[in-house]
């Protein structure tokens, strides 16, 4: 029983009250009530989600533009899998680079076997694709050619007809008498001619549209053949690169090579007869040793993949968030404590609060650039790159600019809430401090800040949400590796998966945003002393 209440309490603190009825139901507490609550808090949201997905699956593929169609959930799932597969493949390549000894040989054997298996398949698929493509093209030409001929004939006829009418009119115009009726009749004839021309134009356009429709019609067979050939080609390419990583580009082989060379030089050095030769060989030995050291520490230059980019984005938002907190909380406290300071800050806060990240970023970029004239030799960057987890994700000026932009856009809710929390402190608490004759610092640390903490954390929670939203835009603009850069790259790719990948990002960003919010709720609950619920 005690465990039950501990569990319920943990759920409560973690902001997962949704699962409260599930736990209670497991313990058989008021099953009817719990079932009703489960229905309300779990089943209905799930049903809504399902309805949304169903609506999306129905509407998406039916909404077409020439740039593409809204991808269906299945396509998005496929894109997500492909994105993750790309990461896995790159990881394997990186691992292959480091494989040595038997491990390398086994991997190489497996890769070679798979290549042998796939090569004929790929060839077959390519041949089939060529066949299908040819068939499609001949069929299309067969369909379209006569239509084009007809169209051409129509156009020639219309042109001749039009020229004939024009000649006639010219002739008539030359022989016009002074009669009003005749002149009116001529005008009518000219009008008629123009109408004819319009009509012919429209007819031609309609005909061409017809041809266009035939040309644009989807060829599922062709697409399937293309997809199959493509998949095989992709995998083969991957396997071939792996083979390179396991043989010619392999770390252990390169090292063995270098060692062998070094030995040769050392041998030669021992037998060198002239001083000049000895010096040259000694130099070579040193160079070879340096080269070996370099090879030893070298790694496969893995490209940025979505999981790494997600991690970097999260680190970036946290850097920005920490920065925002460091700025916002002290200023907020000063604002709350001192009405003069508050009055002084109000115009600045009101002025800068609504500025968009897109405006901040270029400004921040210039400022950060000023502090880092030479990225390869910067104490500031070295400092950040020495921080354990952060350093592994390559802190560069773009990262700092994005983080500072995030900070500039997200510090306002924290600042305002802190000021509010400090200003709204209970008078009784102040009286306690007065009776105890607490000094400024003790009063701040023991009374003011703790009493404002719930509001400060509410502000921090909003800030983190804002920061996460801003970050994607900032990364996109600063091309700092992260989710924003992923979005921009995928958009730039303009491939058939582009739109699906955007949707993948929507879900990734949404889920991480949700997670961050939940974490903040937990913190908020831990500091809230009145036991009031802080979240839905």
């Amino acid at each position, binding site marked *: 029983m005690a465990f039950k209440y501990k569990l319920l309490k943990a759920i409560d603190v973690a902001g997962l009250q949704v699962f409260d009825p599930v736990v209670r139901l497991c313990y058989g507490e008021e099953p009817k009530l719990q079932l009703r609550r489960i229905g309300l808090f779990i089943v209905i949201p799930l049903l809504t989600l399902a309805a949304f997905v169903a609506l999306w699956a129905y509407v998406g593929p039916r909404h077409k533009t020439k740039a593409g169609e809204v991808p269906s959930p299945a396509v998005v799932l496929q894109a997500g899998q492909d994105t993750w597969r790309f990461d896995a493949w790159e990881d394997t390549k990186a691992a292959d680079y480091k494989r040595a000894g038997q491990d390398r040989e086994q991997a190489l054997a497996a890769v070679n076997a798979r290549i042998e298996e796939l090569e004929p398949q790929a060839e077959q698929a390519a041949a089939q694709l060529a066949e299908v493509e040819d068939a499609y093209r001949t069929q299309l030409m067969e369909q379209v050619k006569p239509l084009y001929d007809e169209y051409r004939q129509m156009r020639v006829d219309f042109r001749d007809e039009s020229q004939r009418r024009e000649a006639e009119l010219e002739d008539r115009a030359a022989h016009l008498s002074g009669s009003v009726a005749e002149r009116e009749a001529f005008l009518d004839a000219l009008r008629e001619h123009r109408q004819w021309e319009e009509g012919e134009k429209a007819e031609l356009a309609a005909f061409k549209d017809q041809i266009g429709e035939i040309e644009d019609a989807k060829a599922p067979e062709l697409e399937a053949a293309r997809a199959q050939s493509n998949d095989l080609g992709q995998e083969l390419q991957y396997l071939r690169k792996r083979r390179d990583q396991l043989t*010619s580009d392999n770390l252990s082989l390169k090292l063995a090579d270098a060692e062998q*060379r070094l030995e040769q030089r050392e041998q030669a050095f021992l037998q060198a007869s002239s001083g000049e030769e000895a010096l040259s060989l000694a130099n070579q030995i040193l160079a070879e040793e340096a080269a070996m050291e370099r090879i030893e520490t070298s790694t496969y230059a893995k490209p940025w993949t979505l999981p790494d980019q997600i991690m970097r984005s999260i680190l970036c938002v946290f850097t920005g968030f920490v920065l925002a907190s460091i700025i916002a909380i002290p200023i907020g406290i000063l604002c709350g404590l001192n009405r003069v300071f508050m009055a002084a800050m109000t115009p600045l806060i009101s002025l800068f609060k609504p500025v968009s990240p897109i405006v901040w970023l270029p400004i921040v970029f210039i400022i950060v650039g000023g502090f880092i004239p030479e990225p390869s030799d910067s104490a500031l960057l070295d400092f950040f790159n020495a921080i354990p987890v952060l350093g592994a994700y390559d802190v560069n000026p773009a990262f700092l600019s994005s983080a500072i932009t995030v900070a500039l856009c997200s510090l306002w809710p924290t600042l305002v809430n802190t000021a509010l929390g400090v200003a709204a402190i209970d008078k009784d608490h102040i009286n306690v401090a007065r009776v105890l004759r607490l000094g400024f610092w003790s009063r701040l640390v023991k009374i003011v800040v703790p009493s404002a903490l719930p509001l400060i954390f509410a502000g921090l929670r909003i800030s983190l949400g804002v920061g996460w939203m801003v970050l994607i835009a900032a990364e996109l603009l600063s091309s700092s590796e992260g989710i924003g850069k992923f979005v921009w*790259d995928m958009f730039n790719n303009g491939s058939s998966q582009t739109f699906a990948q955007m949707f993948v990002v929507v879900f990734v960003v949404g889920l991480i945003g949700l997670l961050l919010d939940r974490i903040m709720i937990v913190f908020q609950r831990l500091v809230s002393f009145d036991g009031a619920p802080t979240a839905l």
Partner: protein
Amino acid sequence: MKRLVTFCTSLLAAAASFAAPLEKTDLKFGFIKLTDCAPLVIAKEKGFFQDEGLSVEVVAQPNWKTLLDNVINGNLDGAHMLSGQPIAATIGIGTQAHVVTAFTMDLNGNGITVSNNIWEEMQQIDFDLDTPFPEHPISADALKPIVEEYLSKGDKLQMGMVFPVSTHNYELRYWLAASGINPGMYTKTDVGGRTDAEVELSVTPPPMMPTVLEAGNIQGYCVGEPWNQQAVSKGIGVPVVTNYDIWQNNPEKVFGVTKKWADANPHTHVAVVKALIRAGRWLDETDASGHYVNRDEAVRILSQPNYVGADYNVIKNSMTGYFYFQKTDKREMPDFNVFYKYYATYPWYSDGIWFLTQMRRWGQITEPKSAAWYAETAQKIYLPDVYLTAAQELLDEGLIEKDEIPWDTDGYKPATDAFIDGITYDAHDPIGYLNSHQIGNKDFVGTTAGN
């Protein structure tokens, strides 16, 4: 067998590296998602950089401006650049910084695409265009009446290009001006280049082109691949001309680094150029019947999401020597992308001078300059010495053939009239070339410029 060869070459490469200790081995290069970034990507993926003892990361950049900024402020060691970028940066158009190049990445590779509506109107005007296989090259003659119609309505045709000093800007202007359409002049106060324009050009990032065209904000654009083939495959526009037809074998992209970087890392620079030359050679390798043997693999690599990332079958068209002008109009264009043939990778002074003449022609260079200035400026930016050192090492290592490199050139290609308007370009006489055009600035020796 091939493995063994690479294995030996790596031995050789390492052996060569004793003579020249590298200043920097971990490098970061930028590129824009266009198929002509191929030499950079291939040099990395095929291990050519590794053979030189370099560990290279290649990073996609969002646009040409950011790419250049990143090179200048040191976030990148070097990058895939528009030919005009090192020149413009060095003479101070836009961002001022001394940027140099020792390697031309490719020839040709761009196309001009117009929207379906404009294409239909052009077909209405020029009867011969109204077939599934119109005769090429298509000039802008059929576009002129449309431009005039727009003007009579108080409107101007809008077209997109990728950067103010990009090849695309000059090619689009050249194509329009060759048919007597004024694309507008840059002046001291008009940095948008729209003074007296009959067609207004604006900057749009390459990947945005199809979207913006479909939205109707522009009626046409000039851009590199895959963005013309993309328009065909999505049915939103029709490529009317490739830059091969505007100027045969025109220089397109270069590999640019800052002067400061080149001075600080001379040996690394040579090593990078060596790897790039090998990549270019690999890309243009053909079998006995003249088919590219490695392009399919290259396309496969380029279609990875971290490189160009477009669909394999879209990139494949132009890279393997074909070009779709319409869905039913597939033509052979074996020289659409040239990476090595025709001494393509050599940094020609004459190429730099052509870009300088275009900058002067359209007013980006605001004052008249002497012929000597053109030559000196080109020599400040193009570094054939670095290229030739790299080539010599490759030759010594047996990785290239002697006849593949123009060893004894003075850096000037012979005069050529392979332009859409047939005007002869001789890099020794930039002023004369400038004056042979109808539209654009003309300079007279000893006098100030006139229009």
